[in-house]
C-alpha cells in the first residue's frame, strides 16, 4: 500500500523510485500534446524520455499528423521500443506508448 502512495508522489518529477529492497517500480508518464504542432510533440516526447528511467512507460497523446510517424522514427533511432500506436476520436487523435 505504501508502494502505491510512493509511486503517486514521485510521478513526473521523479519518474522512478528505488527501494532499499532493490525493487524498482516502473512508472507511467503521460504527455498531452494534443493541439500542438511541429516541433513540440517530438520535443516534449524527448523531454519526457530524458526524465524517465529505463523501463518506465511514456505515453504521448497528440493530434499533429506528422508526429504520429516521426515519434516512432525518433524512438527507433534511439533504440527504444514503441509498444503501440493507437488512433482515437475517429483518427483525429493518436496515442503512442513507449518503453524507455
Amino acid at each position, binding site marked *: 500500500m505504501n508502494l502505491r502512495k510512493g509511486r503517486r508522489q514521485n510521478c513526473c518529477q521523479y519518474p522512478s523510485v528505488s527501494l532499499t529492497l532493490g525493487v524498482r517500480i516502473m512508472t507511467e508518464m503521460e504527455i498531452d500534446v494534443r*493541439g*500542438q*504542432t*511541429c*516541433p*513540440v510533440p*517530438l*520535443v516534449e*516526447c*524527448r*523531454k519526457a524520455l*530524458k526524465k524517465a528511467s529505463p523501463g518506465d512507460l511514456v505515453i504521448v497523446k497528440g493530434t499533429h499528423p506528422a508526429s504520429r510517424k*516521426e515519434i516512432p*522514427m*525518433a524512438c527507433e*533511432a*534511439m533504440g527504444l521500443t514503441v509498444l503501440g500506436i493507437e488512433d482515437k476520436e475517429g483518427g483525429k487523435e493518436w496515442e503512442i506508448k513507449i518503453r524507455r
Partner: protein
Amino acid sequence: MGEKTVIILHSGDMDKVYSALIIANGALAMGMEASIYFTFWGLMRLKKGELDKGPLSKMNMLGFGRQMIKQRMNKANVASLERLMNDFKELGGKIIACEMTMEIMGLSKEELRTDWIDEWGAVGSYIQEARDANVTLFI
C-alpha cells in the same frame, strides 16, 4: 560519440531563426547532438530581449507582413522562439557566438544572453564542431 547536427545561423530574420531552432530541436529530439553557431545578423538575435525581434525575410512590408505571419502562427499554435530556445537548452543544445561579429557590431558580452551561450569562437570553432557532424546547414 553520437550523431550531430551543426547549424550556422547567419540570418537574423524571424522566419529563419524559426527554421534553425526547429531543425536543431528536431535533431535533439531524434537523439542527435545539436549546436547552432550564431554569426552576423543571427548574432543580433542573442541580444537581450531580441530573439523574436527580427524582420520577415520576405514580404516584411515595414512590419505589416511580419505581424500577419505572427498572427497566423498564433492561430496555428506555433511555439514561441523563447520556448524553442528553452527546449533547445534543456535538451542539451549548444550555442556558439561569433566573436568577430561582436567586434564588427560593437557588442559586449553584457548585451548578450550569456545564459544561453556555451562557447565564444571563430571559424575554427565551427569547423571543429562540424568536422564530425552528419548534418550541417547554413541559414
